[in-house]
């Protein structure tokens, strides 16, 4: 389990990186290495060049503005977890991060790496889907923004083109006091979830739902927003019947099967975690009553 041979590059600036991306054939970027290094050691990938982006300044960082939060691609999962600003603005991120791997992997793993690797059960890409992320990518042909759902092309596949890299991710802020809930089920702590869900709710003065966002992950090849359910929730007051209806939509997803679980069990879990996440997100409404 040793990596196949490759040439190693460690650019010190974004320009150098662009230069390498323009020039090198069959290159891979190395961020936290928590997915890439195992893939190299299993020899499932064999790049001729490895471009280590850990030494490029300014690729990491958390910047808040009135409407959004910008996360540098190289921001470590542990730093996202530790950020009090982020926890105050988008508390669901800290809640979800507790489920992302282990203390050790979070100290290396980056949000950019999670979003480019795009494991179907990864929490951070799911939150990006939930928070209507915009992905800021750049390459030899210039920079572009990829919006929300367009990023998720399929199983382990993002909208990133060859010779492009992800610079940062912009998340939409939700107003203070919004309801949030996160739930996932994994056999062991730190495992990728068999199914998970995140939910955000905004309530009007009369406790009616003003806005809703629900994401389910680990079930289909990429995280998926329950858009119909979200639309259906708006204007309603929260009830058990509503919960059941949304859970039923999650259970109707086109779930994957693997060596461990059947599609039927995964669909069942999708319903359970969605109901739990949504019930938790509805707490502010219930507390207001």
């Amino acid at each position, binding site marked *: 389990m040793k990596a196949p041979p490759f040439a190693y590059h460690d650019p010190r600036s974004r320009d150098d990186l662009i230069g390498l991306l323009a020039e090198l054939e069959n290159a891979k970027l190395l961020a936290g290495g928590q997915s890439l290094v195992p893939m190299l050691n299993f020899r499932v990938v064999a790049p001729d060049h490895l471009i280590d982006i850990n030494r490029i300044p300014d690729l990491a960082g958390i910047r808040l503005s009135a409407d959004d939060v910008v996360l540098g691609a190289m921001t470590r999962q542990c730093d996202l977890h530790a950020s009090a600003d982020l926890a105050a603005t988008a508390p669901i991120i800290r809640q979800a991060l507790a489920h992302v791997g282990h203390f050790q992997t979070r100290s290396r793993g980056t949000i950019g790496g999670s979003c480019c690797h795009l494991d179907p059960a990864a929490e951070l890409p799911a939150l990006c889907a939930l928070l209507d992320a915009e992905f800021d990518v750049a390459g030899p042909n210039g920079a572009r923004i990829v919006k929300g759902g367009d990023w998720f092309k399929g199983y382990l596949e993002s909208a990133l083109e060859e010779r492009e890299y992800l610079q940062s991710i912009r998340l939409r802020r939700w107003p203070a006091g919004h309801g949030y809930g996160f739930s996932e089920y994994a056999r062991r*702590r730190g495992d990728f979830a068999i199914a998970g869900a995140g939910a955000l709710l905004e309530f009007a003065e009369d406790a009616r739902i003003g806005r809703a966002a629900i994401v389910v992950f680990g079930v289909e090849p990429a995280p998926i927003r329950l858009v119909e359910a979200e639309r259906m929730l708006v204007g309603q007051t929260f009830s058990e019947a509503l919960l059941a209806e949304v859970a039923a939509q999650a259970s109707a997803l086109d779930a994957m099967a693997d060596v461990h679980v059947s599609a039927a069990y995964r669909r069942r879990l999708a319903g*359970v975690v969605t109901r739990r996440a949504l019930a938790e997100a509805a707490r502010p409404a219930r507390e207001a009553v």
Partner: protein
Amino acid sequence: MSTRYFGAAVPRLEDPRLLTGRGTYVDDVVLPGMLHAVFLRSSVAHGRVRNLDPSAALSMPGVRAVYAMADFAGFGSGPMPAMAPHPLLKSPVTCSPLAVDEVRYVGEAIAMVLADSRAEAEDALAAIELDIEHLPVVANARQGVADGAPRAHSGRESNVIATLRGSHGNVDAVFAAAAHRFSETFEIHRGGCHAMECRGVVAAPEPRSGELSLWTSSQSPYMVRRHLATYLGRDEVDIRVTAPDVGGGFGPKANVYPEEFAVALAALACGRPVKWIEDRQEHFLATTQQRDQFWSLEVACDATGRMLGVRGHCIHDNGAYAPYGLILPATALASFPGPYALAAFDLSIDVVLTNLVPTSPVRGAGRPNAAFVLERLADTVARRLNLPREEVRRRSFVRAEQMPYVTGGKMRDGSPVAYDSGDYAKALSLVLDKIDASGFARRRADAAARGRLLGLGFASCVEDTGLGPFEGASVRVTPAGKVVVATGAASQGQGHATTLAQIAADALGVDLSQVTIKPADSRIFPLGISTIASRVAVTAGSSVEIAARKVRDKAIKVAAHMLEAGEHDLEIENGQVRVVGVPDMNVPLSTIARVLSGSAGVPIPAGVEPDLAATGYFEANQLAFAYGSQACEVEIDPETGDTRITRYVVAHDCGRLINPLIVDGQIRGGVVHGIGNALFEHMRHDEAGQPLTATYADYLLPGAAEMPDIEIHHIETPSPRNPIGAKGAGEGGTIPAAACVISAIQDALGPEAPFVTMHPLSPEQIVEWIDKTRK
């Protein structure tokens, strides 16, 4: 003997060294000119090697050689010797160090690349041209015994290599007369060992002496030496085998492996030191596992639920070869009747070859399997007769006053098995008391209010420990007054350097810090068997005691001469022999050791032999039987099937405890293995014999977060069968654990749920049963 250390919770003496990175594991052995080996392994479960062309690989950077079995002609050839021959096995069922012609499991080694670095050797693997013709595959044991099944070895007439039988009493009469008979079928799966350190070997031919040195991460370094010597046609003394620090073994490292031979052969063939370090992927593919047994059993009981007899049959997956003979299925059979006083039993096991990696004992060997089926049968009786589960056991146990109890079973040499001591009912009462079984109904109601299902389970076992014939030890006092103990019993982390030192320190009246335990090394100690079967405390521990007492006697004899005192007036304390009541009249052990080391022209005093040293061999002719009960509570989330063990209590009797800290560690680790077997670990293969769970992402080892606190209570009934009164403690934690967890799950699921007869259980399986029950 003034006991100071025996029984004390002394912190492990080896830990500061191991925990600060100062251990010496096989991979720490680096020799000049050493080459790195990797193996080309079969990617198919059954096939015939048609073509092997290494030419492209040979021209790759750093590559020094590519070897197939034919390249070792002149050094050794043919299949590996059988480690544990059995009369039912007419010829050894072993593989060659490198496969010749037919390959019989995914991972079987076919060729090896030697290169300047491991990475270069791996690069070259892909360049070897290998053409394998596929043959039909036996992918599990049940398939292997079916009519018209393909053959796992194309030359064999049958996949069943042996049928083991164990019986006692007139089983037919007992069943005919019994008030009730119940039958069940069981599917038991156990995974692999997954020691933190994988296997590894360094072999170095010594060009001047012609000797061959081997460092191997093994539980059985002396067996490696013996069989390698036979294979190479050499004398044992020309082969040195060392087991340096070893990071866990748990059974599978007790085998003598093809890679150990292949690395030795390659070193001889190329005349340079060769290192092979197993990586985790190879560990999944090529280190022995335990896997499947399928049991069909019937239990007979009287009207009160007292179990009277058990009969039935088992199909045992032995994998592609039988490197360890029939030991694994034989231990399952030898574990009957467990803690129960059965009037009769009659059991048989078909040992079946499959095209999967060979099996051999993993912690507990077949004992957890036997404990699982016996405990489930006890639960069956309780369920069918509507009796409390503990009542069936209390009525069926061997009672304390029946000790020593002749079970009717037989040891490997044919002599009758007799349990030496213990009170089985007491252990069960103790765990039920400690887990507060009487308060369980209230806890269950509380859990139900939270939407959770709570279950209480328990299980018991008896364990044969201290397997003979011996593990010897030598004890020597150096002229500096240090005590050096050597033994052939290799340590894989069990704490031998502490427990054996405790015994020696007490016997010689020295401070523990003065005692050093040498690693198992054939140049330091001449003989050794294996660190297996919970035997080292009993065998090596007793031998250290015997040897240290001989040294003590010798020291007293010499001191009596030097002090002109009577031997009876002397005691040994603080590293000195002194006159009782006159501590100023003393002679330090170091002085005695120096005198016995000799000086030119000066006679050795007191008519003793030179050297303040002695060797002891305790011959363990009779097994020491440990036993215990475990109880646990599980909490199930009925929506997800998630099962958490919330409480765990162990009552265990392993005789006199040398070191409670170490025993607790053994038991705790053992329970974790059992929990893994009950809920997590599953080595899956598809119909083509391809492993499906060969990474730690797919093979679920339980982690710290999945573990409950494990509360341990000791009962100390000294074994009358060895000088230190000890019984083994290495496997007792594992043996009843899976049965205990499954019994709790059954209890949580309720009487309407199907009777659970398998493990591991997945949450998906559990929700399926819950759904079925609620419909």
